[in-house]
């Protein structure tokens, strides 16, 4: 059918500034008329807020299959991103139940590469992919390129950006920077800080780097542990960290799931003075930020990333202009500004 003109969803005005094009790329002119015409359709689906608009002209969207390949499915961040993808697909008149394929790579790049081959065999029309490793994903990207299937890279930019149509990512480095800046304000110089990291994830490395670059040697980093961003793994390590340094000032965690472990550890030790920082904007963690058990999270907007990726994918399939790089900004949500946000769900 040709009646797909309701598809595109425009970015509402107040959210528009939340999207900045990457400076290096020339900002492509948006088809303004289209997006305005479609804004009604967008309003009917609540959360489909996208940075760009999909041009579905001349495309039978009902016959498309999109694939979503997150790093892992056991972190709600990725479910939130999938939520954004599904909402945007609905807004475009697609049925995510039958037109969206997902696989769980279980934080293993080798597995992800294998699964991408499976997706290519199913002849999906586009792949939305978040790599575990920015280099190791090349095999999968090459395979997609060979099969002429467009890849929309989300969350963490891959090394071989010539193999992907578009990169829609949070600014992970800035996420670390934001946390560091807040910590520099709230914590005396020379205080002890403990870092929970996960060097095997490229995005996590960038966050840690942003944090470390910003704090410099203002604080004493007493320890780092690779707790894989997992609550249960972080919990005992955080308990031990508090025991080892009775005057520990703060935890910086590369994600909110890990930070949740620190919150429980601090609570168990009766230490509500320890600052706890996370990255993601996980609603559960936001709850603790609100009641003061945690300090702040550099919130990403997974559903915005997801919906934008869908739009880019549709454009790529349709042979329309695609933004090479879309940086979805992160915002630091702290106890002070939390009332400005709806923390009941992911952004």
């Amino acid at each position: 059918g040709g009646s797909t003109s309701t598809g595109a969803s425009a970015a509402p005005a107040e959210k528009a500034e939340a999207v900045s094009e990457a400076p290096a790329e020339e900002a492509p002119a948006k088809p303004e008329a289209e997006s305005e015409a479609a804004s009604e359709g967008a309003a009917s689906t609540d959360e489909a807020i996208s940075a760009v608009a999909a041009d579905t002209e001349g495309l039978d969207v009902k016959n498309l299959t999109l694939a979503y390949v997150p790093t892992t499915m056991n972190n709600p961040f990725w479910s939130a991103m999938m939520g954004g993808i599904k909402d945007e697909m609905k807004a475009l008149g697609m049925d995510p139940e039958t037109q969206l394929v997902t696989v769980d790579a279980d934080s293993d790049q080798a597995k992800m590469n294998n699964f991408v081959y499976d997706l290519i065999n199913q002849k999906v029309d586009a792949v939305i992919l978040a790599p575990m490793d920015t280099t190791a994903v090349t095999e999968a990207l090459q395979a997609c390129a060979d099969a002429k299937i467009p890849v929309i890279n989300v969350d963490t930019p891959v090394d071989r950006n010539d193999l992907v149509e578009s990169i829609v990512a949070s600014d992970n480095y800035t996420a670390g920077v934001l946390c560091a800046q807040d910590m520099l304000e709230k914590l005396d110089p020379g205080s002890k800080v403990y870092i929970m990291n996960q060097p095997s994830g490229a995005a996590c490395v960038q966050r840690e780097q942003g944090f470390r670059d910003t704090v410099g040697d203002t604080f004493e980093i007493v320890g780092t542990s690779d707790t894989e961003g997992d609550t249960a793994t972080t919990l005992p390590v955080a308990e031990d960290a508090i025991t080892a340094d009775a005057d520990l000032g703060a935890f910086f965690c590369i994600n909110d799931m890990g930070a949740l472990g620190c919150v429980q550890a601090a609570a168990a030790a009766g230490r509500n003075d320890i600052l706890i920082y996370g990255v993601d904007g996980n609603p559960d963690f936001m709850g603790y930020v609100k009641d003061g058990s945690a300090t702040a999270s550099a919130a990403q907007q997974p559903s915005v990333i997801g919906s934008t990726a869908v739009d880019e994918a549709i454009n790529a399939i349709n042979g329309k202009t695609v933004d090479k790089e879309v940086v979805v900004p992160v915002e630091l949500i702290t106890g002070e500004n939390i009332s400005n946000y709806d923390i009941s769900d992911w952004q």
Partner: protein
Amino acid sequence: MDKKSSGSNIFMQPVKAYFKQNYGILLAFLVMCVFFTIFGNNFLTKTNILNLLRTCATNCYLAIGVQMAIILAGIDLTGGALAALSGVLCVMTFENAGLPIWMGILVGVVLGMIVGFANGSIITYTGIHPFVVTLAMQSICRGAAYLFANGSPVTTTERSFGVVGTGSFGPIPLPVVYMTVFLIVDFFTLNKTQMGRSIYAVGGNELAAKFSGINLNRVKIFVWTVSGAMAGFCGVILAARMSSGQPSTGEGYETDAIAASVLGGTSFFGGTGSVGGLIIGVLIIGTISNGLNLMHVNSYWQFVLKGVIIIVAVYTDRLKQKRQNAA
């Protein structure tokens, strides 16, 4: 005079026997403790000891069941995944279904029992090796946990549920209190009940046990059911400590439980293993990471050291046993 010596005997004999039986591994543990006291921060403080025990507790719940399975010359690999599933369903019971909290806890434990019962029944009636059955069940439980939770943690804000995992009895954290109770029950079950003695008998010589009229099926199903229940309880406590049922939690926990059993002198050939040994095994596993954390040792080194310590400690124990047998 006579009275006094006999009195001291009653109390001292089991203690002496305990030391004699476990001195190899006890020594290893002591060396570790001394080392960490010298090189770690605050190792020998009240808070750290309580902290260490709390961390040990969850491993201990699983290890109690796993040890029974190993005594039976079997194994149980379902623990970690089952704990995740139980935690998820426990929280969902009161968060999503709106039932009271105690029902949630019950659901967690009973679910563990059901899965354990299924393990035991399949092992008994199909004759498939426990390794295969419990490995397959691990996969099933992990999948089910994700399915029920829809991939994301199921969180709760119920304070009273959190207390189950984070509260304390006097200075002692509740998980440690439960651990103590379970260990006592475990001790009595293994040593003082017909079922316990049957477990050793079946593990030591299955045919002999059968010829003595022991109902093999009952013993096997009992052991895996208990192991499942312990995993279920472990899941409930983990969920309570984190205020959320996490489908991804518990990965590899069964490995630590197995390591604790083996360190405590439980033989893979079945028929042997004591609760006293298990306690040291659990403590060693817990102390490795606690002590190294306190020394700010990289978590990667902890993997390496854990492996080395397991081999060395088990070997020491074997040497000691050989010497004892020779004497």
